[in-house]
């Protein structure tokens, strides 16, 4: 019924020529872009226009990453956008262009999924060329290094298509990219430090965690929450990492967000070493920390493998019907039934701490 009303509303509004879209979108994956492209170039739109849903443009090639094209040449290409547009000239933007087809009939491979406007059909780059990069590693790595170089330039980044740098790195990390992030972590702008910490934390980098734990200035970073979110992703069972996370989680003088992030990571790791830290958090007034404590202790007691959600098969000394019944990792559940969960795990800890060596 509501959809029907919507349809009538649409008919009622379709009286003027306007362009409007609300569809979502996301950066396309580099693997997909590379697979769908015969040519990949860094260049600038030397001219072109949009008319209806068709784009016609010429690209002045600055560097060739894939295919038999020549730097310095200008090639024509066409592309398609989602919504028809009034005829107008295209902005002279610089970017990475993914092209398919034969020379003379090149097609733009969009850099985004979902809604496409003329700025989504290539990966936008700052208008100042970055120093030429020697070909390194795979094609994907070369594209990534081109984007990372542009990010490091500090030049304003125009609106347009983008690469999900962190997603790409987490999916397929390389040594050269890691080296870039490590350099940024040591001496980059706040934005680059944030990006590098997020990239390195997600792969369990101990130095990145130490930096987060010791550099109190990071807690004032506008993007601190995104750094803390990356801390939550740590799954390393390394003793040093667990100890550091434990200290961060129980340190009442740390930022609440950092404590919550460390406690969350610790809960998902839930090795025996993590148990006393988690038990200590049962008594913290923060329901976020309580939830992490309950979730982590339940994970240990029920022998849930690190990174998994369900108990492993086979016998486990600490697993009982009660530990199964009191398993939860949810602030809402703790808030709704604090005694049921917190009291149980407090008793469990007192009952088992000696056997666990504490």
């Amino acid at each position, binding site marked *: 019924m*509501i*959809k029907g*009303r*919507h349809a009538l*509303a*649409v008919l009622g*509004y*379709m*009286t*003027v*020529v*306007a*362009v*409007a*879209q*609300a*569809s*979502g*979108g*996301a*950066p*396309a*994956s580099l693997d997909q872009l590379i697979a769908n492209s015969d040519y990949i170039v860094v260049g600038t739109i030397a001219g072109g226009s949009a008319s209806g849903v068709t784009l016609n443009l010429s690209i002045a090639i600055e560097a060739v990453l894939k295919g038999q094209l020549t730097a310095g040449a200008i090639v024509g290409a066409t592309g398609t956008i*989602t*919504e028809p547009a009034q005829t*107008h000239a295209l902005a002279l933007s610089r970017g990475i262009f993914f092209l398919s087809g034969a020379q003379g009939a090149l097609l733009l491979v969009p850099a985004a*999924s*979902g*809604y496409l*406007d003329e700025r989504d059909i290539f990966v*936008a780059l700052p208008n100042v060329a970055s120093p030429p990069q020697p070909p390194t590693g795979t094609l994907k790595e070369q594209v990534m290094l081109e984007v990372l170089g542009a990010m490091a330039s500090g030049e304003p980044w125009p*609106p*347009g298509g*983008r690469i*999900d740098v*962190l*997603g790409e790195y987490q*999916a397929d990390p390389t040594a050269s990219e890691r080296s870039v992030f490590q350099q940024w972590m040591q001496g980059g702008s706040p*934005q680059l430090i944030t990006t590098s910490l997020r990239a390195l934390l997600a792969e369990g980098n101990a130095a990145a965690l130490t930096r987060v734990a010791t550099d109190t200035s990071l807690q004032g970073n506008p*993007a601190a929450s*995104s750094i803390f*979110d990356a801390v*939550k992703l740590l799954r390393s069972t390394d003793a040093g990492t667990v100890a550091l996370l434990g200290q961060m989680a129980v340190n009442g003088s740390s930022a609440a967000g950092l404590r919550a992030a460390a406690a*969350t990571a610790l809960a998902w790791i839930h090795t025996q070493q993590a148990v006393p830290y988690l038990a200590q958090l049962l008594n913290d007034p923060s329901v976020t920390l309580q939830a992490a404590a309950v*979730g982590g202790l*339940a*994970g240990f007691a029920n022998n*849930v493998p690190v990174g998994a*959600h*369900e*108990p492993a*098969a*086979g016998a486990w000394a600490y697993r009982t019907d009660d530990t*199964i019944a009191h*398993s*939860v*990792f*949810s602030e*809402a*559940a703790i808030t709704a039934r604090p005694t049921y969960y917190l009291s149980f795990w407090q008793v469990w800890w007192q009952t088992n701490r000696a056997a666990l060596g504490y």
Partner: protein
Amino acid sequence: MEVCVTKPLVIVFPLFLRVCSPVLHSQCVDWTTTFTSVTTATRVNGNQVQLLNTTTIGGDYANRWQPEDSITWSFGGTAEANSQKLDPTTGGPWSDSFSPTLQSYGPGTYSITAQNDAWSPTCDGGKGILLSAFCAKYGGCTFKLPMNTNASITVQRPTRPDYYPGANHYLYFLGGVAADYGYSAQTTFTPGQANGAPENPPSWVVSYQEPPFSGSLSLSCTNCVNPNVTATNYSLGCNVYDVVVKTSYNGFLSDPFWIFINSPWNTVEANDPVGGTWNYTTAWGNGWQSLINYTTQDMCALTLSGYDMNEWFGYWNSDFPGTSWTPPTPGPWVAPFTQWHDTMNFQCPAGNCNPMPVNPPAGCWPACGTTKVQHAVQNFYFGNWVMGEGVLVQQDTHQRYLDHGEHDSIVTPVSPVN
């Protein structure tokens, strides 16, 4: 008393001569007399063992003796029941047994001990006597009585079922969608070790907790080796095991397979990778474009990666008298990694719209203009390319202003139950 035996007397022609003689005590046992007792513990079916004692008396005087036993069965060393019985007939073989149900007692060692003897109401001068006493009194027995025998069997519970190797190892409830990229509402189960239970296939038993616990699943078959499984609702909370799956071997249940059914759950505001803010607003033609950035989390507040999204709009309400703005067209998209954005924008040829959109300063949000033009309810769904289908993860007011767009009154999580 006398005992009469009819014996053939063969001389020239058959002549049957009836010979009668007094009973002698030595005539109840002789060198042909045998006494055997066999005790066994066997698995009758997946849910039952039989603890059996069988006594047989052989030889010329077998018909003088009624087997008698006293049996006790124990579980884990503790006596559970005993029985003392006398065979109403003579000679045997005669059996006595217990057949405990495994589901009642559980895994462990089931054992039987038996003390075997025999009774004769006629031997020893008609007073009645146990064979053991007879042997002790008169000798001549080639066996020792009472005869003690025993047997045991150790039963292990069948191990828990599991995800079939190579099948999806984790269930998401996806609002009726079977699968979306790496997230699947379907899998296949496989039984664990039967541990001696002969039934193949076992039957499948799924149990749930009472509401408010909510996880549920359906099986394609319940008496098969590898049922296909579909999650039909999500669990009460992260890592709550409100679905338990067991295999049943004629009623003897396996170890439990505790299941948590996850679901896409809520959205989280994310910073635009270019603009650095949640809402990144820029000029677009003679109008504006606002990118509203999100990630999607599951019930465990873990960020999902690689999935389809779509949106749906409710009725469009005008906030500006006489507005002629074309409502946006909803569409689907793919988030290859974690982050996605809703693109809001509007531009219009000069003089063709009421009101005309306005170019905002780049990055104006959250201090853009305040003139509202129109709005509608907007839903975001996870996991489907079809508009309005999948798991509803966010509901908001899609608010269009003169120079930018906003998501207001955001509700997330929204109950994904359709």
